[in-house]
C-alpha cells in the first residue's frame, strides 16, 4: 500500500464531486483515482433524489388523506418521530461510507436513552461523563476493526449485545424521564419552521457541508473507496476509522437524546428496529455497502421517508396486521425506484 507519495493534494481539488467515484473500491489506485476525482465538475449523483422524492411523495399522500397534516403543528407532529431515526441513519451512513456496517445502532440508541432518562435526569454531570465514555466505547469498535481486522459486522453485533445488556442493567423495566431542558428542546416551536423539519435541514446542511467540503469528510469517503488515496491526502486510515466511529457515537448520543425527549422515558425495548431502518435509510438515500459514499441529504430524506411510511399506514385504512408487510413492500419499491434512476444514468 505504500506508494511513491505525490505532492499532497489539497481538499479543494476534489470539492467538485459529491463523492469519490470510479475505480475499483478499496485497494490502491490512488493516482488514477485522483485523476478521476479532479477531472472537472461531476454530474449530480441521482441516487439521493429518489429518497427526496419518496419523502415528499409520502408526505403528499399523507396530506391528501389527512389535510390537517399540512400545518405547522401537523408537520411537527408527523415528523417528530423521525428525529431519532435521522441521527441513527446519519451514524449508519458514516459506518457504511467506511465500507463497514453497524448492527448495534438500535441498542446503542436504547443505551443512550436509558442513561439519559435514569441517570442524566438526576445528575447532569454524571450523565454527560457516561455519554462521553460511550462515545469512546464507539471509538473502541473502530479500533478493533482497524487494528485487529475483525469484520465490523461482528464487532458491532457483539457491541450491540453489550449496549443492550447495559441498558437492561440500568433500566430492567421502562422508567425515568427526560431532563427538563431536553423535553423543552424537543417541544420547541421555532417561528416559521417546525422543529423536526428545521432539525433535519440543519443536519443536511451541516452534515452535507462537512462530508463534501471538509478534510475529515474527504478522508472518510476515501477510506471507504480509495484507501491508498488517504495517505496521499496525508491521512492515516486507521486513525480516520477510529475518529469516524467516535462521530458515529456522537450521532447515537444525539439520536438517544432526541428519543428520550420525545418519549419522556427510558426503555431498552422497542429500539432494535432502528438498526435495520437506519441501514434501509442509508441504502434508500444512495449509500452503498462497498463504501465511499456519504450522501447526507439522501440519507436524511430516506430516514424521513421511512418514518412517514408508518404515519401513512396509520391513517390509511389498512388492517393493522398488514401494515408491517406493506412497509416491507414500500421499502422494496423505494429501492427499486432508486435502482431504476441509477441504471438510467450510469
Amino acid at each position: 500500500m505504500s506508494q511513491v507519495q505525490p505532492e499532497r493534494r489539497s481538499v479543494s481539488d476534489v470539492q467538485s464531486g459529491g463523492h469519490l467515484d470510479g475505480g475499483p473500491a478499496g485497494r490502491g489506485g490512488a493516482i488514477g483515482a485522483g485523476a478521476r476525482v479532479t477531472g472537472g465538475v461531476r454530474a449530480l449523483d441521482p441516487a439521493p433524489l429518489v429518497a427526496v422524492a419518496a419523502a415528499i411523495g409520502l408526505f403528499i399522500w399523507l396530506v391528501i388523506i389527512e389535510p390537517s397534516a399540512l400545518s405547522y403543528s401537523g408537520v411537527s407532529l408527523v415528523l417528530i418521530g423521525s428525529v431519532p431515526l435521522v441521527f441513527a441513519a446519519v451514524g449508519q451512513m458514516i459506518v457504511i461510507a467506511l465500507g463497514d456496517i453497524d448492527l448495534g445502532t438500535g441498542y446503542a440508541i436504547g443505551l443512550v436513552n436509558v442513561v439519559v432518562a435514569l441517570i442524566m435526569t438526576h445528575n447532569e454531570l454524571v450523565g454527560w461523563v457516561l455519554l462521553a465514555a460511550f462515545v469512546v466505547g464507539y471509538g473502541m469498535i473502530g479500533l478493533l476493526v482497524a487494528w485487529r481486522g475483525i469484520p465490523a459486522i461482528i464487532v458491532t453485533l457483539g457491541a450491540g449485545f453489550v449496549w443492550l445488556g447495559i441498558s437492561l442493567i440500568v433500566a430492567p423495566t421502562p422508567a425515568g424521564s427526560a431532563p427538563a431542558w431536553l423535553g423543552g428542546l424537543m417541544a420547541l416551536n421555532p417561528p416559521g419552521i417546525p422543529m423536526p423539519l428545521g432539525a433535519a435541514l440543519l443536519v443536511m446542511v451541516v452534515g452535507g457541508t462537512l462530508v463534501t467540503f471538509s478534510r475529515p469528510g474527504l478522508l472518510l469517503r476515501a477510506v471507504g473507496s480509495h484507501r491508498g488515496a488517504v495517505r496521499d491526502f496525508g491521512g492515516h486510515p486507521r486513525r480516520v476509522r477510529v475518529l469516524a466511529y467516535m462521530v458515529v457515537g456522537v450521532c447515537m448520543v444525539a439520536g438517544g437524546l432526541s428519543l428520550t425527549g420525545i418519549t419522556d422515558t427510558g426503555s431498552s425495548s422497542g429500539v432494535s428496529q432502528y438498526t435495520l431502518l437506519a441501514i434501509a435509510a442509508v441504502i434508500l438515500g444512495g449509500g452503498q455497502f462497498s463504501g465511499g459514499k456519504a450522501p447526507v441529504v439522501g440519507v436524511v430524506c430516506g430516514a424521513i421517508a421511512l418514518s412517514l411510511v408508518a404515519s401513512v399506514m396509520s391513517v390509511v385504512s389498512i388492517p393493522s396486521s398488514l401494515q408491517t408487510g406493506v412497509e416491507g413492500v414500500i421499502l422494496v419499491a423505494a429501492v427499486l425506484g432508486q435502482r431504476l434512476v441509477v441504471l438510467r444514468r450510469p
Partner: protein
Amino acid sequence: MSFVRRTSESYPWVFALVGTVAIISITTAVSGRSPVANLDAAFQSGAILAIVAIGQMFVITAGSGNIDLSIPGVMTLGGFVGIGAASSSHDVALGVGAALCVGVVAAAVNICIIMVVGVPPIVATLATNLIADSAVLVLAANFNGSPPAALQGFVDGSVGGIPAVAFVAVAIAAVGAVGLHRTRFGRGLSATGQSPGAASRAGISVRRTTMAAYIVSGLCAGLAGLLLSAVTGASIGIGDPYLLISVAAVVVGGSSIRGGRSNVGGVLIAAVFLNVILTLFYTLRLTVGYQDVLEGVIIIVVLAGLVPEKVSS
C-alpha cells in the same frame, strides 16, 4: 503464538469447543450437579439455533453481502403454519411439510427481491421479514392450533439424556456438511463466495447457486420454527431472538462473514457454546442484562482470537 495462529486457521471452531468444555466444567462446579441435568436445556435450544445457523451459514457462504435476515419471521410463520396444519389434520408429517413450504416461499420472495429487483440482500431479506411478520399477525388473529402430542413428545423427548432435537440438528449438519464439501453445489457455493467472477468463469451458475443457498436457509428456518413452536406453542415473535444470534453462531463457528469459507461442525459447536454460556449465566443467577453484556464481550473476544487475515493498511 504461531501455534495459536495455525490452529485458528486450520480449526477455527477449536475456540468454541474449548470454551464449551470450560464453561460446562465451570457450570458443573458452581451448581454441584451432574452436567447432564444442566445441559439438557442448552442442547435443546442449541439444536434449534444450530438448525437456523446452518441455513444462515449457507447464505453467508455465498459471499457478496448475502445474509438472511428473514429468519425470525420465517421461523415464527413456519411455526404458525406448521402447528396449524398439524393440529387440524392430526398429521405431524403434514405440519412439517407445511413449515418447509413456508421456508421455500420465503426464500422465493428473498430471491425475487434480491435478483429481480436488485435490492442488497440485507435490505431485501429485512423486507421479507416484515412481510412474514405481517402474515403472522394475520394468522394469529384467530389461531387456535396447539402442538400435536406426538410432535411435542418428540421435541421434549430425549434418548440417553440427549434431547431428540439434538439428533435432528446433527442429522441436518451431516447432510449440510456432505452437501457443502462433497457435492458440486457445495463446492460451487464456496467458490461463489470466494470469487463470483472466477466461479462463473469456471462454469458455475452463481445466481442458481445463491438461490439454492437461500432455499436451504428458508427450509432450515421453517423447520426450526416448527420445532420451537412445538416446545413453546406458536406465538408472535418467537423467532426474533434468532436474528443476530444466528449470524453470531456462524462466525463463532469459524465461517467467514465475507463468504467462501464455511464450517458446518463449527456452527454446531458454536450453537451449543452460545447456549451453554446462557446456562452458566443462569446458574450464576446473572440478570438478563449481565448475560447480554458478557455474551457480547465473548463474541468479540472469540472473534479477536480467531484473527482473520491481517489488514494491510
